[in-house]
């Protein structure tokens, strides 16, 4: 006999749903075709709860919770879409757009960018905040890939995929606050770093921050879906 499965029933946006104990609200919502926007989350990577796009309301709590790390509980009542949440998500997107330099028309990821599609899905029409436009470098030292700090949203997907899946831990974050910056090794040019050239980070990057040199203009779709499959196969071994 197999171990009993602990099932939790909860309500998401008025729909009765169920999930296994240990599952997150985001997972259960997506299983039930309830969409919650995300940026730092990626199936197959650990969760950091950093982008705040997936915040949801939970009944009887004044606080908002990131659904990517919020575990399902019996009787929970979750709201994933409200005017308040919409306003917060839009403002967060504005903060992302204004933080560095996100001019879609000249970006390699135009049309394949998760920040861009999040803005579209959240109905963001304009940015009220002044663009900060900091002077940031482009690291083209790698023979195959390019890192454009101006497009980076510090979601740390690349950091996690390199450390957790590839096992190389080339990427990390330097400095803090608004000065935070993605670095290879101990702040070496990417081309001189211990990079294994596997390209996973490029595939999981949601924006045009990491891109393939061989791709032209906006012709740069990314395929991050390999991760859950890779994890599953590895665990099966």
């Amino acid at each position, binding site marked *: 006999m197999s171990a009993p499965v602990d099932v939790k029933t909860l309500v998401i946006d008025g729909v009765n749903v169920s999930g296994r104990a240990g599952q997150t609200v985001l997972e259960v919502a997506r299983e039930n075709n309830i969409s919650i926007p995300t940026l730092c989350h990626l199936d197959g990577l650990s969760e950091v709860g*950093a982008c705040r796009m997936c915040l949801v309301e939970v009944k009887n709590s004044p606080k908002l919770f990131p659904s990517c790390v919020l575990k399902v509980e019996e009787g929970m009542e979750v709201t994933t879409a409200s005017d308040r949440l919409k306003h917060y998500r839009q403002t967060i997107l504005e903060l992302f757009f204004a933080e560095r330099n996100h001019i879609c028309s000249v970006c390699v990821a135009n049309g394949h960018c998760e920040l861009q599609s999040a803005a579209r899905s959240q109905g963001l029409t304009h940015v009220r905040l002044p663009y900060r436009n900091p002077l940031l470098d482009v690291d083209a030292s790698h023979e195959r890939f390019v890192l454009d700090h101006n497009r980076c949203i510090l979601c740390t997907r690349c950091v996690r995929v390199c450390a957790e899946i590839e096992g190389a831990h080339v990427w990390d974050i330097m400095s803090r606050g608004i000065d*935070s910056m993605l670095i290879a090794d101990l702040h070496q040019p990417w081309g001189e770093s211990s990079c294994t050239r596997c390209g996973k980070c490029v595939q999981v990057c949601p924006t045009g921050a990491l891109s393939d040199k061989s791709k032209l203009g906006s012709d740069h779709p990314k395929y991050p879906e390999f991760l859950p499959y890779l994890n599953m196969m590895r665990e099966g071994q």
Partner: protein
Amino acid sequence: MTSEELLQIAEEVNAERQASDFEVNVCVALGCLSQHSDKLKDALTAEAAVASSRTGKRCHVRGTGCMGLCAAGPLVRVESPAMADTQTLYAGVHESDVKEVIASLGGKPVERLEAHLEQYFCGQNQIVLENSGYIDPEKIDEYIERGGYQALIKALTEMTPQAVIEQISKSGLRGRGGGGYPTGLKWSTVSKAVGAQKYVICNGDEGDPGAFMDRSVLESDPQRVIEGMAIAAYAVGASKGYIYVRAEYPLAVARMTSSLQHARRRGLLGNNICGTTFAFDIEIRLGAGAFVCGEETALIASIEGLRGQPRPRPPYPAVSGLWDSPTLINNVETFANVPPIVRKGAEWYASIGTEKSKGTKVFALTGKITNTGLVEIPMGMPLREIIFGIGGGVPNGRKFKAVQTGGPSGGCIPEEHLDLPISYEALIELGSMMGSGGMIVMDDTSCMVNVARFFMEFCMTESCGKCIPCRAGTAQMFQLLTKICDGKASHADLDLLKDLCDVVKNTSLCGLGMTAPNPVLSTLRYFEHEYMEHIDHQHCRAGVCACGTKPIADLTAAEVTA
């Protein structure tokens, strides 16, 4: 170590004290040390030796911890063990005064140096600071002489862990780091959490601008914190502790390091403490200067050797903390309150303070105030009494404007609310918070918009950068506040600022971001007219902002007097 042995040590120390005719206590905590009180102590020791060879009277010169009144340093307190209640406090003593001070022993005090601070000391109720300034912080026996480690022995030999937690719960003690979470409840959660290994962490990463309570406790009475942690470890079932101190507190680190060794040597840390099966030891971890590492999950990450960044809670550290084990994290001052509660009982502690905020709170009184220094007051004391009574009011005939509590997470409280009795709830009601205990008094030379800008800059540079609202939101808010200060902002900018405050407060990952807008919100609540003057008239009434103070013809009378 048994309680009899403790008493024996206490008696020995006491006998030694009684053997000397005079005691000269010199503060060698950081405030006075910055005025070379260590050299003063050496000079006093040398002079005392000369004098005693002449008069035959024995004089003991002791370096002690903080006496509280840091601005008046170096402080020297002279007493005679034979006459316990006669003591003289000298302020601003320098090496040139040494001969005079020693010569006056047994006679008339040196009037010129005497500090008249009855007002400062009465009204205070010292529990956490009871030994500060009275013992040599590097001598464990002097701590024992004043009742130290009796509480630990009592807990280990007479009480079950459950009974200890019950005492702490009943005492009404709440977290002194700022949040005010009931300490007993936290302990009870950790004790119930499942895990083979549990940890106790002392949070000494005090980083609020203008706050130095924890530093003072660590420097002046380190054994008290060790004893508090050991009692906590016994109560929750932990065998390993960490004290996380910022590296910017070198004296606190040095004293804590030697104090841990002394405690181990006395058998009060290590295996089989006091002949029981209880084992507990403490390690020091140094913070590398990041304010965010005062946040518990970031602090844990830092101890683990990772980048000091918070993670979403739940799970709370009580369930899954250091290396995923159940972990109790309390602030320095919280642990310092524990030994007296266990020693004197929960009822005694609960009799002090207000209904929901029990006991005392140490505040670091700074800014435009006559008596700068540390004060410990019972909860429920009105702010006015702290500032104008104990603190001696605003110097130089200036007018009081506001008091800032709670550091960058807190807010500014104007004059009309000064009569409110101090408690966790009352301060939150006023749009501020207790925080760790910084209290910055501001007079009419401070511009409240500029104050808000200062704290926003602090939050911006101290944001860890993990979540976007805090990382980019504080930077945007800082930019908007700068625009207001420069007299270049519009009403739309102010609306945007208010909106960002709301977003950052509600969407940030950790307490740093959630409370970063508080200084703006509270100054907007009480001093919105100052924002308006900057925006509408490019006028800064305090004359500190770049927009200037040119007189405004079209200011209405109401606006001017506001």
